[in-house]
């Protein structure tokens, strides 16, 4: 049985439409909702939390919770900017739900969360002068203390110093397991998604474009739009490889395309093209090569070849193997 099932969920706030969302989330699944800014990610989380009017159903363990008011839904919400209550200190923030919910073994749970998230020294402090990481831990602690069944995280890593992100991502996975919650984590960063997610849904313009196991979604995008968003490069018609279908496209990783000047390439596919541009970056060169009307983007590591491989307007060969192609 699906733990959380979202069926035909739609919400219209006047200037944005969340259209017919369907998602199935299993127990202990870390679910990542991936989408660009303005794609409706936050709105979907708020709709699941009951903060927006909606049609459709949200079924948790077989019970439809879509008509239950937000305060009774048992959902924890952590916003991108953490939304700590400025009028309360850190401990009062964490314990906020205690006044409204019957929390079993509240003191024990409080101690456990405070220990786990290393908040002992912050409890008496005001929320005003804390770092992004401290605020994030407090916001998560506050949400967990309310004993939620579902934890909604809205871009929780975007305000965190990049040097701490990996450690925090590990903590997020630990929290998910330790407190036995369904986690829906929203992000625009597909690297973050690939690290955390068991399952990924891609949201664009208020619609789910693809959903599935993280590995499948990240390696086999359902369409060009999703592929581009996931960072796929060199997306061209399969026709140029000799395939008949006019609608099919393929993508090839810029790191595995090989280059040569004198026709010595022994790859499955070899094309002749003109160098459009060569740009030197920290540890690699970006080479742009025009093959007929298509411009290939190729990365050449500096350790493999020092200097631009060829000057602009020079003709070179590029090549790649069949096994390195992803069809979209």
């Amino acid at each position, binding site marked *: 049985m699906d733990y959380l099932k979202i069926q035909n969920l739609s919400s219209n706030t006047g200037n944005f439409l969340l259209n017919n969302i369907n998602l199935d989330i299993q127990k202990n699944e870390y679910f990542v909702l991936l989408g660009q800014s303005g794609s409706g990610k936050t709105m979907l989380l708020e709709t699941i939390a009951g903060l927006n009017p909606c049609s459709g159903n949200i079924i948790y363990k077989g019970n439809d919770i879509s008509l239950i008011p937000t305060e009774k839904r048992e959902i924890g919400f952590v916003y991108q900017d953490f*939304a700590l*209550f400025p009028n309360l200190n850190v401990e009062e923030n964490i314990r906020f739900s205690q006044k409204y919910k019957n929390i079993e073994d509240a003191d024990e749970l409080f101690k456990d969360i405070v220990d786990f998230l290393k908040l002992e020294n912050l409890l008496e402090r005001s929320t005003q002068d804390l770092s992004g990481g401290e605020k994030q831990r407090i916001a998560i602690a506050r949400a967990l203390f309310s004993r939620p069944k579902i934890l909604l995280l809205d871009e929780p890593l975007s305000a965190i110093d990049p040097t701490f992100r990996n450690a925090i991502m590990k903590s997020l996975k630990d929290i998910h397991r330790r407190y036995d919650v369904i986690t829906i984590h929203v992000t625009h960063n597909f690297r973050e998604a690939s690290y955390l997610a068991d399952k990924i849904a891609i949201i664009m313009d208020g619609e789910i474009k693809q959903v599935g196991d993280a590995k499948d979604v990240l390696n086999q995008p359902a369409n060009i739009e999703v592929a581009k968003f996931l960072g796929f490069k060199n997306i061209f018609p399969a026709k140029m490889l000799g395939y008949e279908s006019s609608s099919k496209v393929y993508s090839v990783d810029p790191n595995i395309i090989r280059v040569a000047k004198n026709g010595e390439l022994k790859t499955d596919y070899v094309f002749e093209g003109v160098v459009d541009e060569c740009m030197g970056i920290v540890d690699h060169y970006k080479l742009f090569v025009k093959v007929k009307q298509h411009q290939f983007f190729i990365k050449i590591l500096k350790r493999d070849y020092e200097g631009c491989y060829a000057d602009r307007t020079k003709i070179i060969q590029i090549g790649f193997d069949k096994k390195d192609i992803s069809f979209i």
Partner: protein
Amino acid sequence: MFFLSVPIIKIFIGVGSEKLLETIKDGEAIDSIILTMKVSAWAMVFVLFTGLPLAYVIARYDFYGKSVVESLIDIPVMIPHTAAGIALLTTFGDTNIGEFFKFFGIEFIGTEYGIMIAMMFLSAPFLINSAKDGFRKVDVKLEKTARTLGASPINVFVRITIPNAKKDIINGALMMWSRGLGEFGAIVILVYHPMTTPVLIFDRFNSYGLSYSAPLAAVIIGFSMLVFLIVRFITNRL
């Protein structure tokens, strides 16, 4: 600065400390100051209960006719106060509305209730507009988060929204109160007796001249300045 400060300084110098002390000991003057302070405070408390929800609705929601509602709130600030007094008299005087309230034992002509509605009508916009600005500054995500943590909309309003807008609410409330202290035009039309301080100053000036009204004017100016300093002190410490 000269224009703003000299008349204030002049009235204190002109009156002198002896007459000021005499006025402070004058029963009629003190009664009028207490009456003015008390009724203005009641008007403020009444608007705190009724005006804060209105200010919140305006700050948070878009609805048909919102700009009309906002304009209606601002109208009392723009119209002459004596005209406001006439408008209140024709509404709450010898009319059906007046009769309706009379049924519950509330009369507006010549009573403290009359003073209160005159003060409310003309100074409520200070509180409502200030609270509206304060509510707008409260991040709506705080309220949404509080809901997910189990608080009902009313609990959120009381525990999150109001405390985080308190600076503007207190500022607006004190401004409304101090503005109520100075109300004259509307009150004098609705309620000549019992006399609020501004009415008493007017009455003494008319009946006995400047030397008899100036000390009372100095006392109420001093008092208004004290209120102003308290407002500043409190808002700076919040």
